[in-house]
């Protein structure tokens, strides 16, 4: 199992903050898998500026996701 977290506007739009799924592969393929849930998810994961972190480290589309990982998706940050 991996844990997937969603933050801010993405969390609100999807209507969920986290889920646990069986998955191994790249971030890009994970996004493709999540996009198959429905049109809303597809639209959200098609956003080019969506950011990703694996185990709280910034990750890219080609980064590998393994068993037990915590993967987070979120919009560009607006702190400070």
């Amino acid at each position, binding site marked *: 199992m991996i844990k997937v*977290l969603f*933050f*801010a*506007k993405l969390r*609100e739009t999807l209507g969920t903050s986290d889920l646990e799924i069986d998955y191994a592969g790249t971030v890009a393929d994970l996004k493709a898998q999540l996009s198959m849930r429905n049109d809303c998810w597809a639209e959200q994961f098609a956003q080019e*500026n969506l950011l990703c*972190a694996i185990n*709280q480290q910034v990750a890219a589309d080609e980064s590998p996701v393994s068993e037990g990982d915590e993967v*987070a998706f*979120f*919009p*560009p*940050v*607006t*702190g*400070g």
Partner: protein
Amino acid sequence: MIKVLVQVEDFDAGAEVAQLRSTASGAIVQFVGVMRDNNQGDTVASMHLEHYPGMTESSIERILVEASERWSLLGCTVIHRVGTVLPGEQIVLVAVSAAHRHAAFQACEFVMDYLKTQAPFWKKEQLHNGESRWVDARESDDRAAARW
């Protein structure tokens, strides 16, 4: 010498600066970000700050380590609030101490520019008219961070 706090409560900037003062610290620069009651022409009633517990703290620590590698610093403190913030309230403190002012000024600005573009915080504004909206990331912040 590195202190990072992410908290709901307000902070005492003066007390934090006092902690950075020593016989070696010839210069202390502090930046305090304050919430404005106006954004993009709309009156903002309050703001909610969301973060990614764990990653937010570690990403700020990484920024401070990088600042310490670029400039000769004696201490650096970052306090960033989360939760609900009202107009006029403090949002963020960056305080840097160094032997000389040049390093302290530059490092303070560097840390602030990186905070804006790399630390996982998200702002949602509650407008005076009852609407709420997520604040969009600004290109000007990306440009400010890119110059380092």
